């Protein structure tokens, strides 16, 4: 094998998605990334490959990745990859990258992906861009994106004509958007948070023609310097905020009677067919468990309807919900920043507004 050189950019081709599995189940972030990766691969005219690591992962799951856009899947099978370890996964992924030389690698910004990505980028001597919310290789598409979302004077700005990956991400707690490039090194790596990219519909034909390459890695127990003693799921069922059609979130505004505030939010969510979310003020106070938290350090959601009850609208909260289709805010302070993000705002005490709102919505639902 020729010597690996991360700066020999011309030698790298193809778009890869690290498809995370846990307990044998492919995580939904993988489908979101494949859908996004498909677009990039089309723009570049290259192959899209999924990379799955595990032990005896159901072949059907592996094949299904084709239905979400993968042309090829590298399935790396070893008992040592059954449960995630940084050492095991990083070695296998880096070895494979050095062998096959992809130009782009996308990884989910989950608690595992955020552990794996930086470790690999450091070993491969390349750049990694965290928590991307938008990806482009095509310059015209990138300009279109800037026209829509930024104050940059696109017509009077010079753009280099190349297919470098332009990775846009929030920084400074969401106060600033930055497009990052990695022009001199390959692969160009990015992480993307769950819920940020949309999954495209499953395509049966894609599944039938996907090429699966099963690989046995050169990995030994001595390569792994940690020992996983136990993986415990929390006993409670986690709330599915990311998949929800309607999210009703509560903030510190419920503090006068947190139990009652949450009960009212649950009732409204029930009436609308949704689930209950929260600001960090609420999860920090332990009024709701942390899986309910929406925002920069919580979940990113874009439901059809997002209701913010007694939430001030801090930028870290907005970062997780501002792309919701319709946002309804209830706050007793008319100058709360949440009203700037809201489609509809009601100024008032949530403990008074909610019972009326629930009653009227239930009446309409009953009449439908």
């Amino acid at each position, binding site marked *: 094998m020729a010597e690996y050189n991360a700066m020999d950019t011309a030698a790298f081709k193809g778009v890869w998605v690290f498809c995370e599995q846990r307990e044998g189940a492919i995580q939904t972030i993988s489908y979101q990334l494949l859908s996004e990766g498909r677009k990039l691969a089309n723009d570049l005219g290259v192959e899209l490959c999924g990379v799955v690591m595990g032990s005896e992962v159901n072949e059907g799951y592996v094949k299904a990745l084709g239905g979400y856009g993968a042309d090829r899947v590298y399935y790396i099978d070893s008992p040592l990859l059954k*449960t*995630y370890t*940084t*050492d095991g996964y*990083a070695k296998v992924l880096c070895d494979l990258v050095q062998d096959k030389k992809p130009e782009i690698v996308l990884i989910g910004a989950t*608690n*595992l992906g955020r*552990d794996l990505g*930086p470790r690999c*980028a*450091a*070993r491969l*001597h*390349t*750049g990694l*861009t*965290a*928590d991307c919310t938008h990806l482009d290789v095509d310059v015209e598409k990138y300009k279109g994106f*800037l026209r*829509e979302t*930024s*104050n940059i004077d696109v017509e009077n700005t010079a753009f280099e004509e190349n297919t470098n990956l*332009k990775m846009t991400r929030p*920084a*400074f*707690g*969401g*106060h*600033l*958007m*930055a*497009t*990052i*490039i*990695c022009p001199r*090194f390959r692969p160009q790596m990015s992480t993307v948070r769950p819920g940020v990219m949309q999954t495209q519909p499953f395509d049966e034909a894609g599944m039938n023609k996907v090429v699966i390459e099963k690989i046995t890695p050169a990995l030994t127990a001595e390569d792994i*310097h*940690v*020992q996983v*003693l*136990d*993986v*415990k*799921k929390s006993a409670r069922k*986690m709330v599915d905020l990311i998949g929800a059609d309607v999210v009703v979130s509560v903030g510190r505004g419920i503090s006068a009677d947190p139990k009652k505030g949450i009960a009212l939010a649950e009732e409204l969510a029930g009436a609308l067919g949704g689930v209950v979310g929260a600001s960090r003020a609420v999860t920090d106070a332990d009024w709701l468990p942390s*899986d309910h938290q929406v925002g*920069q350090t919580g979940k990113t959601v874009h439901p059809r309807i997002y209701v913010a009850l007694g939430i001030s609208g801090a*930028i870290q909260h907005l970062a997780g919900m501002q792309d919701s289709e319709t946002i309804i*805010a209830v706050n007793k302070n008319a100058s709360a920043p949440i*009203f*700037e*993000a809201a*489609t*509809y*705002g*009601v*100024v008032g005490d949530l403990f008074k507004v909610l019972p009326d*709102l629930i009653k*009227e*919505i239930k009446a309409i639902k009953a009449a439908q």
Partner: protein
Amino acid sequence: MKAIVCVKQVPDTQGKVAVKPDGTMDRAAMATITNPDDLNAVEAALQLKEETGCEVIVVTMGPPPAEGMLRELMARGADRGVLVSGREFGGSDTFATSQILAAAVNKIGVGPEDIVFCGRQAIDGDTAQVGPQIAEKLHMPQVTYVTEIQKKADGLVVKRMLEDGYMEMKVQTPCLLTCIKELNQPRYMSVPGIFECYAKPLDIFDYNALKDDPLIETDTIGLKGSPTNVYKSFAPPVKGAGMMVESVSQLVGILNDKHLI
């Protein structure tokens, strides 16, 4: 035994955040604080000190005024500080930052029982990449999202937070741990601590102090050594303010008309 803690001084993004018209941050207009997760990392090291008597060393890369932060952390109980500072280090991305911090840790010296602590994520760059990248460059195992640490005779048993539970694992030392707010409650400075902190040793590592480490090359540090570059930056889009409704009935009427309910 040593506990080496990497700490970053950051603008307080919870307070007033100033974005200049050209899309860069007006750092001068913002207050600086110790990165929140890093306070949990320092606390973890101080608890280890109480248990084992280990030495706690706080390390930061930043401009000279970051010394003030190191003194505060010494007032909380850290034994000494290292300020990594130099023009050559400016403009580093996470790759280059971790090259430099790993070289600084090498200079401090890593023993078989030592632990390097980082915060999970800094609130300005927001990448959560520096910890794992330092671990890679020091060839150490890492555990991220740490919520519990127990010292054992032959290593550590730590809990690592997952989205839907946790993983309990045993890790050999030396190792690197990244800490989250669930790990502990950081202590405050003590009054005797404040008196003592100025007498504690503080070393400054500049480019010359680190340049013999193979990690430090002109093409692996600073702006030139950074694989990533900021290509464009801009303020996030402001959505036009929505419509204020007068009553619940009006709101429900609109929602019904738009077939939203």
